């Protein structure tokens, strides 16, 4: 086993430390529960560890636009918020996608709609995976289910953002953000900005001036840019990943992501110990969605049950993935109520026996 030192920290701190390890040098954010540990941690550590910049913005609107500005300069930059704040960021995220700017946005999902509550929820799945703002665009979406994944996925998020020159969303939730677990910090190889120096704006000394924009008014220009973006999203499909657990001989495959995927895993373990043929697919990327994994399982004749802490969002993607071969049942745990692994026993057994 690795001799690396483990530390016992909250998910929000793991996300913060992951960002620092990823070489993030600019943070912009506005207070909102349940993610406040992140700006509180980075308000001192950003400068101390990475000699970077921390700005408490006047709003999430401003924070996201500061992110846009730092990204235009080619910096590794991020913002974090929770659901209502992320709604306010959507215009800037759309501009970033249209202007092809890399940046990382963390959403520690809380209950909605409206002010909702400060408890955990997966209600922002649609907003996260369908672009969220105006226009035809997508952001890559990573979904940590453990504190360690919170750390690891921040490193991955920055790399993907620069690889594709695209905003990347890390969709955590209040459970991941607020629970404490052992985390093994690690340092990635030197940050690879995938040639950002060739497109960022840093002064046109000895070269042509550069322009970063999302306005395309000339005849055919916007259609061309949209085609360009669509082929980029096509290329992103290669990044789809899922944690596939006990699916080989399973009759019923449960699909669940983030903290709920983690809780369902406990339920599946318990049912396995009782000899029940149930497995779990836990998508780690929500966009691109790991459709191939599900489709392969559908071809083997498996049945599906999607479990989410919302009223049915990811289930649409599961159904699209297996369309023509299979379907998926749905069990929704209402946001506003904290689930335990026992809560999922009955629905899984019901669908196993159906």
């Amino acid at each position, binding site marked *: 086993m690795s001799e690396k030192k483990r530390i016992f920290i909250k998910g929000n701190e793991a996300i913060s430390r992951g960002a620092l390890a990823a070489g993030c*040098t*600019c943070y*912009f954010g506005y207070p909102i529960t349940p993610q406040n540990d992140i700006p509180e941690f980075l308000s001192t550590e950003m400068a101390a560890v990475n000699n970077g*910049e921390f*700005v408490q*913005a*006047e*709003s999430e*609107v*401003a*924070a996201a*636009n*500061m*992110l*846009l*500005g*730092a*990204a*235009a*300069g*080619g*910096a590794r*930059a991020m913002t974090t918020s929770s659901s209502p704040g992320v709604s306010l960021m959507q*215009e*800037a995220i759309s*501009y970033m996608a249209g*202007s092809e700017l890399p940046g990382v946005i963390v959403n520690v999902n809380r209950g909605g709609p409206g002010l909702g509550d400060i408890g955990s929820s997966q209600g922002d799945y649609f907003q996260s995976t369908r672009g969220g703002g105006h226009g035809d665009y997508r952001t890559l979406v990573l979904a940590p289910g453990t504190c360690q994944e919170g750390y690891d996925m921040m490193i991955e998020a920055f790399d993907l953002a620069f690889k594709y020159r695209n905003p990347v969303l890390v969709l955590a939730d209040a459970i991941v953000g607020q629970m404490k677990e052992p985390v093994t910090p690690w340092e990635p190889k030197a940050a690879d900005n995938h040639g950002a120096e060739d497109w960022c*704006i*840093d*002064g*046109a*000394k*000895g070269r042509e*001036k*550069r*322009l*970063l*924009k*999302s*306005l395309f008014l000339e005849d055919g220009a916007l259609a061309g840019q949209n085609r360009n973006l669509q082929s980029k999203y096509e290329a992103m499909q290669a990044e789809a990943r899922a944690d596939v657990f006990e699916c080989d001989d399973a009759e019923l495959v449960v699909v669940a992501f983030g903290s709920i995927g983690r809780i369902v895993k406990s339920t599946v373990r318990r049912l396995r110990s009782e000899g029940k043929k149930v497995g779990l697919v836990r998508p780690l990327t929500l966009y691109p969605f790991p459709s191939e994994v599900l489709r392969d399982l559908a071809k083997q004749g498996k049945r599906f049950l999607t479990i989410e802490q919302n009223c049915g969002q990811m289930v649409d993607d599961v159904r699209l993935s297996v369309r023509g071969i299979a379907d998926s049942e749905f069990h929704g745990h209402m946001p506003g109520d904290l689930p335990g692994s026992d809560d999922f026993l009955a629905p899984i057994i019901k669908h196993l026996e159906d």
Partner: protein
Amino acid sequence: MSEKLVFDAPEIMIDRPTHYCPGCHHGVAHRLVGEVLTEMGLVDDTLCVGSIGCSVFIYNYLDVDAVEAPHGRAPAVATGLKRAHKDKFVFTYQGDGDLASIGLAEIVHAANRGEKISVVFVNNTVYGMTGGQMAPTTLVGQKATTCPDGRCAEEHGQAIRMSEIIGGLGGTAYCERVSLDSVKNIRRAKKALRKAFEMQVNGTGFGFVEMLSACPTNWKMDPIAANTRIKEEMIPYFPLGVFKDVTKDGEE
């Protein structure tokens, strides 16, 4: 061969047909920015943050690196950009709808934080690009497409005076209101720009220059009448002058 060039544009100005209306002051403001950047030797170090309004195409006229900000958000975009590139010269160029209405929070807080950026604020008392709607700066009595009978103080409130607000903030290093209606005032405007830009270059802080400008098209005036309107109607309500200069003892 016998022709002699007596007046030329600095190299930073891209030689192309303008999309601005005849008599529009955006072109004058662009030119002043270009001249000052050139004279200060900043061209290769400049990052321009454009805004949404008729001047969204500023990048077509100035040969510098540029990024396009969402409507009103240029000061936030400039904040992020400047934090990422402290050694570069970062300025925003914004209209009155952009800066004084939808972007009010961003401009006030960028100034209040004392961000080391410069802001060129072109106040033509109207939403130019969208066709002449009422702006936060539209004068009481002035007609606009969304107040065809003229702005009414009771219903719409009165015009916002931005330089008075920005000049009153602790983080502002330099704030001046100038006008582009006459040669004398244009000369003064250039000096103000230079002053504000210097405050960024030498690390003093946030610089703000408001330029009273003409939008003959939406004012439904010819360019000369538009200049007269600036002098007779705008300047009395928007007084010219320095509202803050931290390099002077005591504030004006």
